[in-house]
Each structure stands twice: as structure tokens, then as C-alpha cells.
């Protein structure tokens, strides 16, 4: 018997697949191609470029002219791996701070009276209604020498001279923690909210203290949310450009900023593409780990 072709399924899977091929894989391949090219003072600013009408031979000629020069360059110059390391450090600590701040918020949300919960969750996502850029600009107003925070501290009499807050790594941390907090709170809230209250009661009944019950029952059971939240903060923070550019200073080294400099200041598209490819490879590892964890969590839930 011949299996009947399922058109419905074909379209259901085909359309998103086509979308991904067209708007995800193709740009990636273009970036990959540029990263293997050489810089040129031309339009486009790299060589070799595919010459229209040269056919398969033209493609072959192009491939032959490509090399890994740019990647070797990345290894030679300190600035790149220092940027990667610095980004890693900033993303890592921002994630930790976001978790420390987000967990109590999510816990409070999950324990709040049910009629309030919808409204409180709405407050968490409220910042998304304003442009990300405007919100980061707002922090400049708060943190600058004559900004709100310094004025307030001077008024309180805690300090005599304004603190240098803006254009420091400190400001970058504040910016990242502030911007990505909802991405931490929401998965944590989802994990904590569906937890059965009687589990904590059972732990208390069996002799633990409230703190013991939290560490032995509540926290391990919210692990899926912790991991999801951490990845949702860590991955975008790693490649963050806007926040270090607007709030950071000259000492702030982040790969997103370096990448931007290569593209727009140096107009070195091939090296910039190589930086992007390496960043992608660095992030693929945690993303794969994240997906495996999600699969495991789903298995456990079923």
C-alpha cells in the first residue's frame, strides 16, 4: 500500500523550514563567506566577490581565493580574546546578579494572592512597552555626575562629591541586570507557580525548618526555571552592544562593542564576520546544553 502524501504536514513543517533557510541559514552563510574573504577598498568592501554571470567557474575561483587568515588574526591580536573573556566575565556575573535579584521577586509573585498575580506579572513585563534603547538612555540620566542618583545621595549627605558612575563597568552591570531581569523572573515564576504547596508542607511535616524546606525541595524543583532564566540572560548579555556602548567607558571591553568597531570604524567586514562566527560558536555550546536540559525536564514532567 502506498502511503498517501500528507499535504497538511508538508506545509506545516515546510513554511517555517523555508523561513529559517531564507532568513537564518542564508545570512549565516553570507557572514561565513565574508569571514573567509579579504578586506578590500571596494564595494562590497571585501574580496573575492562573486562576479555576476561567471557561473560555476566563478564560484570555484571565489572558493579558491578564500582562507582562514582572519581567524588567525583574531588569535594574534590580544584585543579579541580579551574582549571575549571580558564579555564572558560580564555576562557571567550579570547572570548571577540577575538570578539573585530575580529569584526573590519570582518567589514573591508565585506566593502572592491569586487575584493579584496577573497584575504583578503584568508589572514585570511592563518595561517591554517602552523601547529598549530609551530605557538604557534613561539610565544615563540617572547615573551621570549631575544625574538623579548623585543628586539624591548629595541631598542625603552621604557623599560630598558626585560619584563617577556612568561610563564604568558598574553602569554596564546595572544596565544588563535591569534590562534582562524580566527574562529571569518569568521562567522562575513559571517554575515556582506550578509547584504544589503541599510539597513544602510535607517537608515541614517531616521535620525540616522553612529554610531547609527551601533548599531541599523548593530550589531543586525550580531548577528548570533557574537554568532557563540563566540562559535567557547569559546568551544575549554575552553579545550585548548597546548597553556597554551607552553606559560603559573606555575600559569596558565587550565583544559586541569590538565587533561594532570592526564593522563601522575600521570597515573591516571580513574580520568583523570572523568575530561574529567565533561568538556564535562560543554560544552554541551553552545553547545545546540548554536544549538538552529542556528535553530532560520535559521527559521528567511527562
Amino acid at each position, binding site marked *: 500500500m502506498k502511503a498517501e502524501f500528507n499535504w497538511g504536514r508538508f506545509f506545516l513543517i515546510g513554511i517555517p523550514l523555508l523561513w529559517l533557510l531564507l532568513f537564518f541559514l542564508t545570512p549565516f552563510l553570507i557572514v561565513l563567506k565574508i569571514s573567509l574573504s579579504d578586506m578590500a577598498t571596494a564595494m562590497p568592501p571585501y574580496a573575492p566577490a562573486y562576479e555576476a554571470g561567471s557561473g560555476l567557474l566563478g564560484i570555484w575561483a571565489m572558493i579558491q581565493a578564500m582562507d582562514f587568515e582572519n581567524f588567525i588574526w583574531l588569535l594574534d591580536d590580544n584585543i579579541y580574546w580579551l574582549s571575549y573573556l571580558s564579555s564572558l566575565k560580564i555576562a557571567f556575573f550579570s547572570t548571577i546578579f540577575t538570578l539573585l535579584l530575580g529569584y526573590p521577586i519570582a518567589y514573591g509573585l508565585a506566593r502572592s494572592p491569586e487575584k493579584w498575580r496577573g497584575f504583578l506579572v503584568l508589572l514585570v513585563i511592563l518595561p517591554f512597552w517602552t523601547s529598549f534603547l530609551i530605557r538604557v538612555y534613561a539610565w544615563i540620566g540617572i547615573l551621570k555626575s549631575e544625574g538623579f542618583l548623585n543628586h539624591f545621595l548629595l541631598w542625603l549627605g552621604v557623599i560630598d562629591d558626585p560619584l563617577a558612575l556612568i561610563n564604568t563597568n558598574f553602569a554596564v552591570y546595572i544596565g544588563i541586570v535591569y534590562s534582562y531581569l524580566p527574562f529571569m523572573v518569568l521562567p522562575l515564576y513559571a517554575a515556582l507557580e506550578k509547584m*504544589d504547596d*503541599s*510539597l513544602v*508542607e*510535607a*517537608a*515541614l*511535616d*517531616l*521535620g*525540616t*525548618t522553612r529554610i*531547609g524546606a527551601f533548599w*531541599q*525541595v523548593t530550589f*531543586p*524543583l525550580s*531548577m528548570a526555571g533557574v537554568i532557563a532564566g540563566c540562559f535567557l540572560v547569559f546568551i544575549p548579555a554575552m553579545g550585548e552592544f548597546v548597553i556597554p556602548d551607552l553606559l560603559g567607558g573606555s575600559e569596558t571591553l565587550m565583544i559586541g562593542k569590538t565587533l561594532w568597531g570592526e564593522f563601522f570604524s575600521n570597515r573591516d567586514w571580513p574580520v568583523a564576520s570572523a568575530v561574529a562566527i567565533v561568538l556564535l560558536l562560543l554560544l552554541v555550546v551553552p545553547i545545546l546544553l540548554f536544549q538538552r536540559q529542556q528535553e530532560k525536564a520535559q521527559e*521528567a514532567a511527562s
Partner: protein
Amino acid sequence: MAVNTNGNKVFEPWNDPQKTPLIRFEGVTKRYGDFTAIDNLTLDIYEKEFYALLGPSGCGKTTLLRLLAGFETPTEGRILLGGKDLSKVPPNQRPVNMMFQSYALFPHMSVEKNIGFGLKQEGRSKAEIADRVAEMLKLVQLTEFAKRKPHQLSGGQRQRVALARSLAKNPKLLLLDEPLGALDKKLRERTQFELMNLQESLGVTFMIVTHDQEEAMTVASRIAIMDKGIAVQVDTPAAIYEAPNSRYIADFIGDVNFIETTLGSREGDQLQVTSTFNTPFKLQSDIPADIGSTLWLAIRPEKIAISKQQPTDKDNIVQGEVIDIAYSGDTSTYHVQIADGTIVKTLQANQRRLSNREITWEDKVWLSWTNTAAIALAK
């Protein structure tokens, strides 16, 4: 052990004035805002009892359990355990353990970790914990499932893990909140007997909350029937069934027929009453009631006989017509309409095959019962 009138040793500590109760509720009231969940309740529960709290949902039975576990504190009154006030003792320091309705097994821990959880909190050594866990696993016959996670177990197995976990610390009192509610009927009946055997062999006092009257009747040494935060009657299962103190109780436990009557005359405990449809009935009762007052006769369907011929040797007879027969295999319930339209139900064992049944729809029949079958109730 007390000795009853037949000379048999029976377990009736509540009739022994020398015994002190393990648990005593002294005028306990629990309010949530305007809602009174428990209303000035006084109860005694004795050691080694299997005590059942029975009632419709919202009657306060679960609140009572949570008060004992320490998850709620009484608004008024005291709860004493072994003579000591429990109010100031937090749940994690009470010699009381609870088996939750949802089982509340920790999903991230294996069966043995779940069972050993309480022992670990006591700071016992690894070897001690392992021994006790092995003992509990054997008790509930789950030894080979020690390494499994709760989601890899069937409902019945999870129920047994929850039971083993709550018994592992050898509590003075075990609270069971609808412990069999999630099991299917066959498994539930089998587990009831397992619970009873376990309770007897361990000697732990059990307090069970249930809305299933058959379950309470089967397992309990005493039942407290609750309604709106009050214990309406506390008695042994037999006493509750045979001597309910109100129409609410009679109706709540098992099936019952009510006939409204007026007390005509009494000689000692022999009462003569007249129904609203003018049929006289005789019964034996020591109910304190004045002549002319209203009494309800509560008669269990299985205590009423049905026949096509008029019986001559019965105290009470009444004629009617069969309007419905509910066949349930082993028994049939005949719905008989009598004089004023009242429906009286009678339960008969199907000793003959269905095809040989002599009474059928629209037959004129006689219902009869002895003078001890009916219970007179004033309220």
C-alpha cells in the same frame, strides 16, 4: 482492655474512665475571616485508635487535620497531645506525621530518598537511615522500587510510598487526608484492609479524613461525623449505623426510609405511634418524648421484608405497590409506594435467579418489619 457485656475483650478506651486521651481538642474554634471552619469542638482521641473524620466537603474535617499537623493554629481553644499544649509547637517539631491527599512525594527524589527524608532531618546516621528505609520498603512491599522516581510508579505504589514516608519516623499520630481517594474501587477496598492490618501491627494511632462512608465504616474504630464545623455524632461504626442520633446522621450513613409519625402511647420502652397516613406502628425505643410529639421512624431498607401475602406474625405491616426495582446483581432495591404516596425502599438479596423473581412492577405487596427495626428520631 475493657470487657463488654458478653464477656469479650474489646478495644473501647473511650468507655474506660481511667484512660487519658492521646489527643484532646478543648473548645477549638478556627475562623477564616467570617467563615467558621471549626466551631467550638471538643473531641478525645485515644492511643491506638483508628479514628475517622467523615463529612461532606467543607465540613471542617481537613481543617481539623491541618490543625493537628500544625499548618493552622486554632483561633480559640487548645489542642493537647499527651497532656501537652500543641499550640506553640511548630509542625516540624510535632510527633505527628501526615499523609497528604496528593501524596506530596518529592518528584526529584527516589523512593528511598523520599522515605528517608524525615530521618535525614533528624540527623540520623546513613546506616541507620538505610536500615529504617529498607524496613519501611519491606513493609509496603516496594523493596525492588527503591531507586525509582515517583513518576515511574503507579498510583497504588505512590500511595504506599507516601504511607511509608509518613510512618518512617514512627509518629505518635498519623494523619491521613483522603489517603485512598485517588485509587480505583477494587484497589481501594484491598488497601483499606492493608491499612487496618498495618495500624494494628504498628500500634500507631491513625486519624483518617474521608468523605467515603463505606471506607470510614470499614477501617475505623470510631467515626466522628462532621457538619459545618461541628462533630454531629462520635461513635463506633455499628452504633452510628444502628443508632444514629439524628436524621442527618441516619441519612448520611447508608440508605434509609423516613416515616413521620406522632407518639400515641408508651409502656416502658414499647412505643405506639401513628403515621401521617394513619397507620399505627409499634417500636422499641427509650427516646425521651412526650405523647403527641412528632417522631420520625428511620428504617434501613434491608430490615424491611417484602411479600405478596399478608404476613401475620410481624409487628408492623403496610400495603403498597411496586413502582420501581433497582437491580444491582447481588441485591435488588424495591421502591414501594404506600398509602399517602410515600416511597419506601426495601433491599432484598437476590437468592433466586432473576427469571424466577416472584415480585415485579405494579404488584400489590406487603411490607413488614419487627418492632426493633425502626429507630425513633426526634430531630
